[in-house]
């Protein structure tokens, strides 16, 4: 390991096109260990693509992504790097044929080769952490959306990641189930997890994040602390977008 001051995640000049659709046009930002950053922006702006690039589910056309001292775009051990990055997204991606417990165990037993007994203990501990001890033996189809997403979080945490990515984790949920997922995320942040979150939950962003990144058309328009972003955004586009969000979702945390 080298420099103690280097960020945990450092994204430099990230570029990506799908065909002739330029989706990411030079995105740069970084996260220090324990930091929590929120990305906001209109639909189709490339927010999900940024996260997909971070664990190379989408291969960028240009730029660098450093996780500590591993460069993700060019590394040749991507499956090991992915174990260090938890990914939770809108559609949950739970394995339908496995119980909540087995969903959390699968990565441990099959990827990390943890012995079954140990994996089970660990999985139970993670499920307890997200408040799901009572549904260990339930199948995904028997869980509410909020429970599904918490299983997905526990599954990601079981791999002991250094970084957690969240892509609109509450967008598919009924309004009354959003809170339980945000609470888990908030607790995670308080415990020091490094998190990069795409969300339109401005209450969460305001309470938890260290910085809000506003993206539009594949570029970062503005990044600043939540206080500054909400009280006096610099860019008129940011102001306009936040105003629209207020109309759609209500004023964040107020």
């Amino acid at each position: 390991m080298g420099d103690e001051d280097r960020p945990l995640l450092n994204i430099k000049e990230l570029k990506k096109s799908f065909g002739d659709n330029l989706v990411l046009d030079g995105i740069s930002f970084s996260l220090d260990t324990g930091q929590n950053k929120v990305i906001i922006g209109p639909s189709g702006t490339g927010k999900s693509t940024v996260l997909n690039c971070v664990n190379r589910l989408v291969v960028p056309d240009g730029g660098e992504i450093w996780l500590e001292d591993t460069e993700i775009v060019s590394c040749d051990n991507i499956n090991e790097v992915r174990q260090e990055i938890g990914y939770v997204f809108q559609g949950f991606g739970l394995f339908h044929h496995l119980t909540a417990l087995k969903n959390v165990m699968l990565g441990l037993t099959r990827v990390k080769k943890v012995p079954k007994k140990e994996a089970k203990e660990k999985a139970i501990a993670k499920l307890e952490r997200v408040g799901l001890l009572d549904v260990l033996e339930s199948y995904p189809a028997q869980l509410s959306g909020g429970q599904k997403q918490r299983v997905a979080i526990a599954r990601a945490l079981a791999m002991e990641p250094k970084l957690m990515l969240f892509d609109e984790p509450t967008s598919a949920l009924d309004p009354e189930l959003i809170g339980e997922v945000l609470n888990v995320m908030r607790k995670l942040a308080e415990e020091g997890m490094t998190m990069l979150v795409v969300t339109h939950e401005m209450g969460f962003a305001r309470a938890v994040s260290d910085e809000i990144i506003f993206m539009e058309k594949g570029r970062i328009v503005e990044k600043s602390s939540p206080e500054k972003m909400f009280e006096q955004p610099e860019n008129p586009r940011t102001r306009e977008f936040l105003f629209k969000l207020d109309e759609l979702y209500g004023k964040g945390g107020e």
Partner: protein
Amino acid sequence: MLEFLTEFMIIDIFVSNFGRLMSGLRFTLTLTFVVMFFGTIFGVLLALGRSYGIKPISWVCTAYIELIRGTPMLAQLFILYFALPAYGIRFSAVTVAYLGFTINCAAYQAEYTRGSLESVGADQYKSAYSLGMKRWQTILFVVLPQAIRWSIPAWTNEFIYILKYTSLAYIIGAPDLMTQGKFIASRNYQFFRVYFIAAIIYLVIVLISTWIIDKIEAKFKIPGFG
């Protein structure tokens, strides 16, 4: 009903040919189970090859599946039994029955399985890869177990089909239930009655199988699976 059976000597014929009928039934059932066993294994492999194999493998699997499904089973049996000997490849009727039905069954099982493989959504691949699973691990531990469960109803339907279609074996003279029936009838000239008995035996076996299959399906049922 009972009168009908006695009057037309159905029971007589059944009792006096019991041994032969049961030996035919035994062959039919053994053939069906063996064909189902290997047909399903080859079917799953063909489906995996078609869906996930590199281009040439996928192409070969596709060609096989479409060729077999696109031609009549009778023609396939004829080719194996009557046409191949012209090229010096000679199989016994029994071998042709096992081989032909397995070849055929595999193609159908492959298509059912492929449909199930494709019904596993992109989100699950995404989360599996995010956990650091390799492609083969994702297919083996995430996609395939679900595809198999989705396929069970189609596979068991196929079992019933095969059970009945094996009667085509009589065309090449493999000693199945139908062939034994034909043999009995050719001696007592009671064609209608003998085939009636054979049909009843098929019906009883199908009903029993359906009942057992329902029990098995219920046992393997997972909430969220059709």
